[in-house]
């Protein structure tokens, strides 16, 4: 069974294709046009080069964030539309899991850090387990000094990865002695690999059950009381 992976949680648009034989195709573009204009042509290009028809797909995997709102909106909407039209199941995996999985061979605590904009980052901590990584902290969002406080509280050898780690490298290193390195973006190929392991267990859902992971600040009412004229 072939799985199409769609990854748009960061500036990168990534698509990959794979199954029992591993990842057979992937296409990633970081400095392209906006997600909405890049994603579908990327899928078409990759499928054509791999000589795969849409109706050969058995499952759609998608990065559900956290990450860019504009990117996730495009990725999730496209992934759900495809799965719905093809009547196939979906697997959602978080961007933090994808980044951590890519560093599964590190012997440190792996800390994916994704840029949340407006001077904040998303992060979580992972440790190695046979065949992959396991998350050991709840995904969090906050300013970089909260991440540093979290690192200090655990005081373990850590490896920070992701576009947030790269952007705030100096602030992180100033507050906590650790390793900061790439890969910068979650990988669509890793998405397909992880999804395949779950697909074997039929651990998948219907398109309407896939939800984005926003991890945003608690909701609040907009303070319209300052406006007398609003009805």
């Amino acid at each position, binding site marked *: 069974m072939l799985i199409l992976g769609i990854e748009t949680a960061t500036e990168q648009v990534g698509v990959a294709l794979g199954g029992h034989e591993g990842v057979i195709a992937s296409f990633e573009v970081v400095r392209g046009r906006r997600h909405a204009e890049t994603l579908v042509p990327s899928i078409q290009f990759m499928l054509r080069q791999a000589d795969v028809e849409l109706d050969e797909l058995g499952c759609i995997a998608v990065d559900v964030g956290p990450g*860019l*709102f*504009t990117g996730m909106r495009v990725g999730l909407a496209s992934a759900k539309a495809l799965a719905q039209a093809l009547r196939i199941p979906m697997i959602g995996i978080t961007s933090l899991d994808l980044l951590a999985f890519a560093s599964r061979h590190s012997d440190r605590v792996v800390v994916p850090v994704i840029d949340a904009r407006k001077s904040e980052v998303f992060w979580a901590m992972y440790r190695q387990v046979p065949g992959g990584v396991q998350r050991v902290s709840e995904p969090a969002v906050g300013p970089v000094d909260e991440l540093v406080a979290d690192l200090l509280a655990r005081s373990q050898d850590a490896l920070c990865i992701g576009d947030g780690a790269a952007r705030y490298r100096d602030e992180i290193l100033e507050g906590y002695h650790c390793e900061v390195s790439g890969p910068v973006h979650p990988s669509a190929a890793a998405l397909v690999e992880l999804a395949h392991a779950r697909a074997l267990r039929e651990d998948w859902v219907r398109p309407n059950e896939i939800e984005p992971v926003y991890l945003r600040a608690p909701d*609040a*009412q*907009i303070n319209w009381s*300052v406006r007398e*004229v609003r009805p």
Partner: protein
Amino acid sequence: MLLRADSLASTHAIAAALAGLARKGDVIVLAGEMGAGKTAFAQGFGRALGVTEPITSPTFTLVHSYDCPGKLTLHHADLYRLDRMVELDDLALHELAEFGGIVLVEWGDVAAAGLGEHLEVRLRRDDSDDSDVTDGADDADDVDEFGLDEARLIELHATGRAWAGRWDRLARELEGYRC
């Protein structure tokens, strides 16, 4: 910086001066009551950036986007219909700015905390304007129904550092409108 625009044309000229110094990544809040001239300001701003399509109020559609020369996109948002901060998050205006955009946000002052660093343009009618006293011409054909051509006061205020390096030049260009 407090400015006085005595007509729609001066409002457009002030907007154009600001547009000339605006750059990708800027978020500009348009504050002011209904009819204060927020959309008129946006129109002058967009035209100066090279937008040729009509710029209309995004109140019902939330965000209108216009492609401009120089791989720039002008996003014109209106928060009037929003009630909750999560709805503002969903618009991801900061991301639109970061990816080659300039974002104008009408009513943005009510949710300033959710917008990050920005420039606020506060518009209000200038009630001290005595040249506009009603003279019985209300039913003339050229009556200015929405008060667009009335004099208005425009106050500019920057949060953060994004405008620090441009402030002096902006002040020089708008010298003629200072009050």
